[in-house]
């Protein structure tokens, strides 16, 4: 049996189970509601997309990291049952990861795309922006589900695991920018472009923000790190660098989590 067949079977099962999850349904409906409200009050233009950017940058990581952690804890007994079958652990892990990442990111995409179609927002001028938004939402989901799995595999205690997940979200989505700004104001006279760039690469939420805002081309709302990136690289190089860094942000936690999963005593 090849690696992919086991993983695909686990993914198929997860899809059919999660399709009936009220939790996921609530997520899709909330995203749809917010999208609908933004498009209704702003009209189908860039301002509505900007509103969605904030939703994506805050809510997607939160949902992915908490849902991911809880999900793996809830699957604990089932994972034991899977491990008692003649299957390889890395294949099971990959199946579980894709089996959650696919429906959660699909949930976000449906939640945005359907109301956007309803309001006729898929116009020539907005399609690029909305498409980038959804691609970034997918990337953030992939990153934060990977982080969640890394936490849940390594931390035996459910409450502690969830607390760590929340702390990770707080750190990346909320506190990080504040800390960067603080540093900038403290070292206002020093040349800060390179440290700021490094700081940006070290935070997937920042990376996602830069990717989005480079694409939307709204420099006023780019924040300090985005401005630095744009000056340093220009759009295309910045895009490539940010995409590469985001891929690393998926690969590294996934690899660490997978390694712990393979070595773990269940």
């Amino acid at each position, binding site marked *: *049996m090849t690696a992919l067949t*086991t993983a695909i*079977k*686990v993914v198929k*099962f997860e899809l*059919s*189970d*999660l399709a*009936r*999850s009220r939790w996921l349904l609530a997520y899709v409906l909330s995203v749809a509601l917010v999208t609908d409200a933004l498009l209704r009050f702003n009209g189908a233009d860039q301002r509505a997309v900007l509103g969605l950017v904030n939703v994506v940058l805050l809510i997607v990581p939160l949902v992915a990291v908490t849902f991911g952690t809880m999900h793996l804890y*809830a*699957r*604990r*007994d*089932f994972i*034991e*049952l*899977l*491990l*008692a*079958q*003649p*299957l*390889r*652990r890395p294949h099971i892990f990959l199946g579980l990861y894709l089996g959650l990442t696919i429906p959660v990111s699909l949930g976000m995409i449906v939640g945005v795309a359907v109301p956007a179609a309803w309001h006729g927002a898929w116009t020539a001028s907005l399609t690029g922006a909305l498409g980038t938004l959804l691609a970034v939402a997918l990337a953030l989901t992939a990153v934060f589900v990977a982080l969640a799995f890394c936490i849940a595999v390594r931390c035996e205690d459910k409450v502690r695991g969830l607390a760590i997940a929340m702390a990770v979200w707080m750190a990346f989505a909320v506190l990080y920018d504040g800390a960067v700004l603080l540093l900038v104001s403290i070292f206002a006279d020093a040349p800060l472009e390179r440290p700021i760039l490094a700081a940006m690469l070290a935070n997937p939420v920042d990376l996602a923000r830069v990717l989005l805002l480079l694409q939307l081309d709204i420099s006023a709302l780019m924040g300090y790190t985005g401005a630095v990136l744009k000056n340093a690289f220009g759009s295309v190089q910045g895009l490539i660098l940010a995409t590469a860094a985001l891929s690393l942000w998926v690969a590294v936690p996934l690899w660490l989590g997978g390694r712990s999963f393979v*070595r773990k*005593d*269940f």
Partner: protein
Amino acid sequence: MIAIRDLGKRFGRSEVLRSIDLGIRRGRVTAIVGPNAAGKTTLLKMILGLTRPDRGELLFDGVRVNGDPAYRSRIGYMPQSPRFPDHLTGNELIALMTDLRAPTTSTLDRELIDQFGLARELDKPLRTLSGGTRQKVNAVLAFLFDPELLILDEPTAGLDPVASGVLKSKIARSRAAGKTFILTSHIMSELEELADDVAFLLEGRVQFVGALHDLKLHTREFTLERAVASIMTSMEAA
């Protein structure tokens, strides 16, 4: 069928298994008994490769268990009261397991489904089933692929007397057909009914292993329960 030599495992500060030496013979029912936290479940999980030993070795048919999952296609496992995925129905779970194990023979052993009267329950989401009914599904899954070795952790826990009787006679019939069993239970009368061999675990060691009647001779006690109690008392005195 299984040879275990000097197996040791610690979790943090607690040494769950100190040094286990044990042989599981083919075609027999071996009961692992012992007080709570004696390491019974840990030992079962090690045989399945769910938990790795720190020390010692574990041979399955003479081959060391070391991460290659193929040998598990010969094992059916019934974990201790597991929580199955919420939204799945019993039939979907059976279909998934069949899909994952891809058994070489197309005939599945669905006998227990009829005997438990489970057919209608298997269409309902597992989350809505009672604990006892879920335990029946658990038993069905363990026997489904007609494995050579069945590892049953507290198999009758949560079952009513009728269902428990069904499961016990299934175990007896499978044993007569040449299957090997490793099981744990706290119900001594049940072990007495089913077990050929007994391994008594205490403080991470096998304190006694042998045929059930040898244990009774050894301790000069008539029932297994009293025999076990007598070993535990003599351990405390020592």
